[in-house]
């Protein structure tokens, strides 16, 4: 099993009830698998959109992007910078 760190921000952190969590996955796995596991672990995150914006290791990715052991996955609310 591999461990991925998951970070939540802004409204998603409020839904999750935390800013970070860890999920264990068997590889190969994708961001979509991480989102699925997060929904199982943290009931509040079931209110997240079905296809949230995501980043892996500080870069925007699509949900079918692969994740590896030790990666940092972030689930991002609609961006509002500027």
């Amino acid at each position: 099993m591999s461990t991925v760190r998951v970070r939540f921000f802004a409204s998603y952190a409020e839904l999750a009830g935390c800013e970070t969590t860890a999920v264990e996955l068997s590889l190969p796995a994708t961001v979509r698998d991480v989102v699925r596991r997060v929904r199982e672990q943290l009931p509040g995150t079931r209110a997240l959109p079905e296809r949230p914006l995501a980043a892996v290791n500080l870069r925007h990715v699509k949900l079918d992007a692969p994740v590896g052991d030790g990666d940092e996955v972030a689930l991002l609310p609609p961006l509002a910078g500027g």
Partner: protein
Amino acid sequence: MTHLTRVPISIDDLIRAVGGPERGGTCVFLGTVRDAPADGGVTGIEYSGYDTMADAELDRILAEAGKRWPESRIAVRHRLGLVETEEASIAIAAAAPHRTDAFDACRYVIEAVKQRLPIWKKELRADGSALWVDPHGRPAVVGPPSPPPPV
């Protein structure tokens, strides 16, 4: 160097950072917190972000702009924390030998920021409520609800 700051942005410092004798045009863009009287008034916005990614993303955006306008020099600062109405939340300065490139580079950076920067706004209303701003829809109330109107 970080592009994020929790203190008011110095426009003079930003202009100095991009200036030079070979650059004859400098374009500055400021994004400021605006009031919304129709929605009951906005006193400020609390900015929060995925700091490390926002900084990395701004590095990438500036690198892209540097490739497109190689003779330009561009600097950007984005506020985090509480920014009061009329204060700048973002400032971009782009200097180039001629004005067209300065305007284009500055526009490129703000448009990329809007699309890619992992930063979020909680709008603070005059009635004490607070709302996460969703640029794609109506914000949801997350703070204390407004008191009922007087009878």
